[in-house]
């Protein structure tokens, strides 16, 4: 099973969700700045990364975890990804997770300042603060995704 977490830039919310999924972050408390900066791709992407499906790791159930930045295409990208999966006949092997709903204003402003304006010194503390604020919602999203993946796997094995 492949799981793709996607958000605007593929740099903050999706990357944090993927890191949570892979156990790179402690789920019981918000991460520190150092812990967030240790995550691959966290606040490190550039324009050429938009649209790239980047591998983050494999979880304990052998699910491959990816992140993707899809700019402002919103839910449309979910349709595109699942539509392509349907064409290939592999909808049971793919889960796409839109993280955009959990992106708060601090993440938007901080992310824009850090990645688009390249003012990391100004933007990074704001986006990190925003990520910490959205942390438990991201934990919830990841838990739902993990359950979905397990359920999908069980139903695929049953058929």
């Amino acid at each position, binding site marked *: 099973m492949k799981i793709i977490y996607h958000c605007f830039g593929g740099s903050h919310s999706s990357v944090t969700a993927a890191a949570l999924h892979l156990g790179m972050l402690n789920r019981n408390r918000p991460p520190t700045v150092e812990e967030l900066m240790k995550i691959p791709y966290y606040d490190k992407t550039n324009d050429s990364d938009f649209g790239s499906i980047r591998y983050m790791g494999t979880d304990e159930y052998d699910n491959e975890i990816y992140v993707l930045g899809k700019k402002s295409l919103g839910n449309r990208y979910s349709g*595109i990804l699942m539509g392509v999966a349907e064409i290939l006949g592999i909808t049971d092997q793919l889960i796409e997770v839109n993280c955009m709903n959990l992106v708060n204003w601090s993440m938007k402003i901080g992310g824009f300042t850090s990645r688009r304006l390249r003012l990391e010194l100004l933007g990074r503390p704001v986006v990190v603060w925003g990520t910490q604020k959205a942390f438990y919602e991201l934990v919830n999203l990841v838990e739902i995704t993990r359950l979905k993946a397990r359920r999908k796997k069980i139903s695929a094995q049953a058929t």
Partner: protein
Amino acid sequence: MNIIFLGTTGIHHTLIAAHLYLGKLEQESYTNLKFWDDRKREEIGYPIFIDYDKKRNKVYSLGGAWEILMTQKSIEQLVKIMDFSEQDLVVKPIFIKRERILLFLHKIGRFKIVNHLVLPVISYLIKKEFAAIKQQVEEFKSGVRFA
């Protein structure tokens, strides 16, 4: 094999490209095509199945809004990640000069009253681009290698 014609919208010029590829559109009478300006279909975001070609390849039309190349990149990478290849799915982007205007008109046309006004303009723009669309389809036809 599956072929996706990708453009700013999946219900205008890419729809024409798909029909031209299938040899189902000789004249510029495209406003009667199935899915022409079908906004509900477009909103879902799924590739729109048009028909099979002579070699039983499935032909689709898809809109990627402002981000055609980014969408193409994502689809091609997804195909590879899922252990498929170009022999299974090919994305052919269709570009037209006035695609930004087309997308703008498409966006403001989501209001029914406005749509009645913009639809003839969209048709006019597409008519102007018809030769360019046809040329891209011909290039694709001569270049693609089928499984």
